[in-house]
């Protein structure tokens, strides 16, 4: 009979500790949302490399919130330890001397403690505390890479090792378009302030307009870590939706004649120029804007690995293994910040709406500046390459190519659009530096 009783209590205990009794409705809604995101990642292939781990992390944390739990380091009295059902013998102790008044204000029973008489004759009660510690959940530790701003610069290292800045070096004027597309960030900031967001939150929302996932996560982890979940999901969703969001704006703002402009071939870029480029950029940007140094510095370090040609193995590791490992950790832990109560509120709706506006404004500003450049060069620049100034490498450049080719099938804008595209990465890192230095 005893066996059956124990079996019964074990089953009841398991049921009580399971998610079935402790989860709130928000958790269930979030689990459903994670299913939708997984569907989008697997079936529709929307940025699956990030969306899949994000969605899975989101699901896990809502089923088992303890996976993201902070480590505990608490001082408990003997009675509290017993009340929690813990074993006092397994913890270290520390003691504190208290006067009778202090003991009473703390709500402790004086009869339970030793009275100690010091050499000067004063009397104190000796209260013994147990240092109760518990480790945090798995994702808590992995999340430190995001929380401390370690992962996004590491991803930038890989991006740098994969990026060819040749088109930008061949046509440095592309930097203007990369800068123009960042205006959307600052315009959205005003919108977010008008909607009632606090300045640090508004900065994190506005950076979605940079269309650069790691930058958005880096800025948010510095300014408003509690909004990381919704912002990461919004940023990566919009990057996946570039082919749907950008073309209508590009067509609206340009004439058929402008769209069919054929641009001349880019000049070849020598190896020496490519090797010097990352060094020059880092020296300039990091000197002028130290807050952008972690992102731009790692981006250019990766690029120097690639272009120097002497550290092929490191370059390969940065673009493949390291990048993949960091992407996994970044994805699951960013997803794990989206617990039900934090995600399901009106702020999230505001973030998603403002993020879209930021993205559209960035695209529009890029195209408008493309038009200005077209006018200034007397029709030598196709304004369509301006929309590639939002980062989203290389998707945004491919869209410029596609929209251009719809008008003139023999027109190849891809390499011309890669210039503003990679300039956009540097531009959004600089914009991130401005936001952090002003708002932090």
């Amino acid at each position: 009979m005893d066996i059956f009783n124990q079996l019964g209590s074990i089953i009841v205990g398991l049921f009580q500790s399971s998610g079935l009794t402790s989860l709130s409705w928000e958790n269930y809604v979030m689990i459903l949302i994670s299913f939708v995101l997984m569907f989008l990642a697997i079936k529709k292939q929307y940025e699956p490399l990030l969306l899949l781990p994000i969605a899975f992390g989101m699901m896990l944390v809502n089923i088992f919130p303890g996976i993201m739990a902070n480590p505990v380091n608490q001082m408990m009295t003997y009675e509290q330890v017993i009340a929690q059902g813990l074993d006092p013998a397994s913890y270290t102790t520390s003691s504190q001397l208290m006067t009778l008044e202090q003991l009473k204000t703390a709500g402790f029973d004086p009869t339970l403690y030793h009275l100690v008489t010091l050499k000067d004759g004063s009397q104190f009660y000796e209260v013994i505390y147990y240092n109760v510690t518990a480790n945090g959940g798995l994702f808590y530790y992995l999340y430190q890479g995001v929380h401390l701003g370690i992962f996004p610069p590491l991803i930038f290292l890989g991006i740098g090792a994969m990026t060819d800045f040749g088109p930008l070096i061949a046509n440095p004027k592309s930097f203007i378009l990369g800068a123009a597309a960042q205006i959307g960030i600052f315009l959205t900031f005003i919108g977010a302030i008008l909607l009632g967001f606090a300045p640090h939150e508004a900065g994190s929302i506005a950076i979605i307009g940079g269309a650069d996932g790691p930058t958005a996560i880096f800025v948010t982890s510095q300014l408003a870590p509690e909004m990381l979940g919704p912002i990461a999901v919004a940023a990566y969703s919009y990057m996946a939706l570039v082919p749907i969001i950008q073309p209508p704006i590009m067509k609206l703002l340009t004439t058929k004649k402008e769209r069919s402009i054929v641009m001349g071939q880019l000049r070849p870029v020598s190896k020496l120029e490519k090797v010097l480029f990352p060094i020059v950029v880092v020296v300039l940007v990091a000197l002028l804007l130290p807050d952008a140094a972690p992102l731009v510095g790692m981006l250019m370090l990766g690029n120097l690995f690639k272009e120097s040609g002497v550290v092929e193995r490191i370059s390969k590791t940065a673009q493949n293994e390291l990048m993949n490992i960091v992407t996994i950790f970044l994805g699951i832990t960013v997803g794990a910040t989206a617990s039900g109560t934090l995600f399901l509120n009106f702020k999230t709706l505001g973030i998603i709406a403002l993020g879209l506006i930021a993205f559209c404004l960035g695209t529009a500003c890029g195209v408008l500046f493309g038009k200005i450049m077209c006018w200034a060069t007397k029709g030598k620049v196709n304004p369509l390459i301006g929309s590639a100034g939002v980062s989203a490498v290389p998707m945004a450049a491919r869209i410029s190519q596609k929209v251009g080719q719809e008008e003139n099938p023999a027109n190849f804008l891809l390499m011309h659009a890669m210039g503003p595209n990679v300039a956009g990465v540097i531009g959004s890192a600089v914009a991130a530096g401005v936001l952090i230095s002003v708002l932090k």
Partner: protein
Amino acid sequence: MDNLTLALTLLLAGFTIVFLVLILLIIVITVYGKIIQAAQKSSEKRKAKKIEQAAPAAASPEAAVPEVLPANNDEIPGEIIAVIAAAVDAVYGNKPHKIKAVRRSRSARSSWGNAGVAQNTRPF
């Protein structure tokens, strides 16, 4: 209202700083691009002169390809030979060179296998 002032200031500051930094980059990159191009052109001219003096009879790779064909036992198609000649040219560049024959290498390992072994055994 205070926040709105901050927002407008940030718009102006952000706009100015982002453009200033990137325009500075444009200037620097244009300038050093021009310097490097000029330097390389002059050094190329010097090299070309040297080559002319040292080896006036050096065959250009285009001229080398037709010479190769008889040395090849018809097993290797012309396109492949053209690619190999181009690769040789890319490696040797301006140095005088001549392809005498193109033969298939007989090795226990495939060339992909050899490449893999080389990559894993090359010292760091």
